[in-house]
């Protein structure tokens, strides 16, 4: 397993948000995490990426324990993420946004920047090339110089993915990447997720409400409800699991996307 969670428990002010989570993502695979709103999916992401600190359990990534690490250290180890509500850096260009991802893979400091040392200039060039390649990969290279937040919504999501890819991760966490996309954009997204796995060798873990997309792209699906994993398996197993149907039927109508 590339990522392995064991017995993870997270509580906020006495409420148990995640309970004894045991869960894994394999190298070079696409896995999904589904579940009704408030089930704790994003909290789980936040635990993996170091934004929340679980009270107990263990999270290992390629054999390294993540639990005591800060978010930036987790990213350095090779886990990148996107956010549920797109969080791009305002007033900055698309390329500048993507270059954030390369921060942890480069090292020039204030001193070399002020002096404009050759090593610093070479590094800048290299960072720029890598980031341009990432934009190329997600298909928005021609928008590199625009202000990121002025892009169409779908493209903003792509910028976020390119930014995450620029950290050169081994595992990419996508938080509802299809939210707000139209159907042709969703088709593109499915292709992109597969390409990320196949061409870059990056494992993908996504949280998604669009069941069609989830079923199409995932090799492994875990269902989270009230902070527990209630079912695991491939698309077929999940679709027929009575506990899953029960969990979703208890929800509002607009959550009934399980087809």
């Amino acid at each position: 397993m590339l990522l392995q969670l064991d017995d993870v428990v997270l509580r906020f002010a006495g409420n148990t948000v995640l309970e004894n989570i045991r869960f894994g993502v394999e190298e070079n695979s696409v896995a999904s995490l589904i579940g009704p709103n408030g089930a704790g999916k994003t909290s789980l992401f936040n635990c993996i990426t170091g934004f929340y600190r679980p009270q107990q359990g263990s999270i290992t990534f390629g054999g390294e324990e993540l639990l005591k690490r800060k978010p930036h250290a987790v990213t350095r180890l090779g886990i990148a993420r996107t956010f549920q509500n797109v969080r791009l850096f305002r007033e900055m260009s698309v390329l500048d946004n993507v270059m954030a991802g390369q921060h942890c893979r480069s090292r020039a400091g204030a001193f070399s920047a002020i002096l404009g040392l050759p090593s610093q200039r070479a590094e800048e060039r290299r960072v720029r090339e890598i980031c341009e390649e990432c934009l190329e990969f997600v298909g928005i290279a021609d928008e590199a110089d625009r202000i990121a937040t002025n892009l169409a919504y779908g493209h903003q999501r792509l910028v976020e993915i390119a930014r995450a890819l620029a950290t050169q991760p081994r595992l990419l966490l996508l938080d509802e990447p299809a939210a707000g996309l139209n159907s042709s954009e969703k088709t593109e997204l499915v292709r992109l997720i597969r390409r990320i796995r196949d061409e870059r060798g990056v494992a993908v873990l996504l949280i998604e409400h669009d069941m069609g997309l989830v079923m199409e792209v995932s090799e492994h699906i875990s269902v989270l409800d009230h902070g527990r994993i209630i079912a695991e398996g491939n698309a077929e197993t999940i679709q027929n699991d009575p506990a899953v149907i029960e969990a979703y039927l208890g929800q509002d109508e607009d959550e009934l996307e399980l087809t």
Partner: protein
Amino acid sequence: MSLTDILIQQLVNGLVLGSFYALVALGYTMIFGVIKLLNFAHGDIYMVGAFVGFGALSLVSGTIGAGWMGIFVAMFVAMIAVGFLGVVIEQVAYRPMLSAPRLSILITALAVSLVLQNAALALTDGQVTAFRTDLGFGGVSLGAVFVNYTQIVLVASAIVLMIGLELFVSRTMYGKAMRAVSLDKDMCRLMGINVQRVIAVTFFAGSALAAAAGVMAGVQYGRIWYFMGFLIGLKAFTAAVIGGIGSITGAMLGGLILGLLEAFATQIPHIGGEWKDVFTFGVLILVLVFKPTGLLGKSEVERM
């Protein structure tokens, strides 16, 4: 003076000083509670309160004199006027900024502080103003310990105001709404609470208390000037942080603790006197670094 006398006398000094800090700290803490803003201008509101009180006392001293009667009238006038000033500042300067980045609203608060300070500077030409009353220097002696009548009345008034505030917050609709707003603004909106009005009332109450403290300072010390709010603003903030910012009881407690700390520190060689302010700021930094929630503040959800 015997050691006991010194301790008791410094205890009295600390309590008097602490009640000033507490009154100003209350405003910081209440305003922070409802809009999560560190109101830099709060110390200057205190200064404006002192000047309004001075003006009011000059007006009424002809008819009712500048004794306690006149002073309480002046204090009342200052509290009302400065309370409204607080509301105006909130409406004009802070309300449009509430959704702006945090840095912007902080700088706006600083700008309000500078406007008030420099307006007073321009009006007084930078001179100190003597705050004259008819009060004498009499007091009570207990052995070598000496307590001024003025000090007794001022501390009593501060206690009355604080009890009044406590009742206001715990018993009235606005007070309850204030606590609710400080917990969750959006939820309050959904519940039909007029959040804007609650914020305005909070500014009114906080500013009025600072004005009362300003007038008391004028009465007690006999001198007011445009820069008088700077140091006390910082110290009251320290008091609010010690008590736990956002907590009303904490502000009172923090004020008293800081007053006592300063009074006793004076007596300690090398810490008192010229290093006193360093000592206060040092306490502030230590509290913020090691216990940012203060004595009575509630901790936020732990993140990162």
